[in-house]
């Protein structure tokens, strides 16, 4: 997981930490059940205050992205996996629609796949 903090972004540091953890969860980089680093370790490694990280973790728990187990730490909940599932379902629906649309104009699967391949750019799927 990468967390990059910018003092110039205008957003409070705790929000920047929150947002980047949420995005690591929704893109499947942090899986359900995995533990976040302890508050103090995260604070040290990011070079920020303890209260700042605590606020970020509290918000993540309040918003359902994570849950906290007394004395054990903070863990990723299933909410991220649900968002991920929904996202994948949406892509599947759009693909089905695209295949139908291409077929209606006589463009077959082979041609369509080639077009998707040629779209190029970022081909490194994360998960």
């Amino acid at each position, binding site marked *: 997981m990468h967390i990059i903090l910018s003092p110039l972004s205008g957003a409070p540091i705790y929000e920047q930490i929150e947002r980047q953890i949420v995005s690591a969860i929704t893109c499947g980089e942090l899986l359900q059940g995995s533990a976040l680093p302890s508050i103090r370790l995260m604070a040290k490694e990011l070079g920020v205050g303890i*209260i700042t990280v605590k606020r970020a973790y509290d918000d993540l728990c309040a918003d359902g992205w994570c849950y906290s187990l007394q004395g054990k730490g903070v863990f990723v909940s299933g909410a991220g996996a649900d968002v991920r599932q929904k996202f994948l379902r949406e892509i599947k629906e759009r693909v089905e629609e695209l295949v139908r649309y291409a077929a209606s104009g006589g463009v077959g699967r082979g041609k369509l796949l080639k077009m998707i391949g040629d779209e190029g750019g970022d081909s490194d799927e994360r998960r």
Partner: protein
Amino acid sequence: MNAVEIRDLTIKNKDFKMDSLSLDIKKGCITGLVGKNGAGKTTLIRALTRQLRPQSGSILYDGKKFADHEVEILSEIACVFDGPHFPLGMKIKSLKSAFAALYPAFNGEMFEALCRKFSLPPNKRAASLSLGMQRKLCIVLALAQSPEILILDEPTAGVDPSDRAEIMSLLQDFMLDEGHTVFFSTHVTEDLDKIADYIVIMDGGRIIFNEDKVAISSSYRIVDLPELTDGVKRSALGVRRTAYGCSALVKNDGAYPDARIPTTEELFLYLTDGDGEGICGH
């Protein structure tokens, strides 16, 4: 929970007055103290470390009175002052044995490990070290006392940025234990922007500001304006003018979407030099 509770502390001498100052230092957190020279930072630290007797008021350490638990409290506190508090002619290895004799909890292994980490050779004399190295040696000596509370008076004054970063990381290492507490005064406000949890600002022997970092980033803003409006003037906590406009420190009420979060330096400048009144967070 409070590591230290200061109540109604009054210290007066011929050119300085601290009148009925109260402050809680939160356990498990880093509290940074800023203020102009002469604001009373060092006086407060000297009272905390029992080098100075207040005329009245009380200081509780972990809920305990100094008079009743003197030995226990002294063993839980380690201090770093703005200069070395040992003879500079001493070699580092003799400092180790001297401190081990003075402090029963002195951790010789930890001292040696930190000396290796910071390239402080055992046979060197403290006097032959650069200022930054001397500061690091003082902090290493304090940490090796295995304290619960670390109190530092300007630990990074005159220290270069890379040594400063190492010192800050050393303090954060110390904070990995949630029973530990750091209280330090500094003019290097960037250090506080990074690692402090609470910012306390002193002026004229009083505490004029005391907030945690999350509260600062949600409740305070700096607005830049071509000229001061009546509305801003009424609510401003501090104002600074330039030839081309002015800026004000205000409570964040959402009225200024372009406003930015103040840095520690800005809080300090606006509250101590600006036109506004000081505020106390609690």
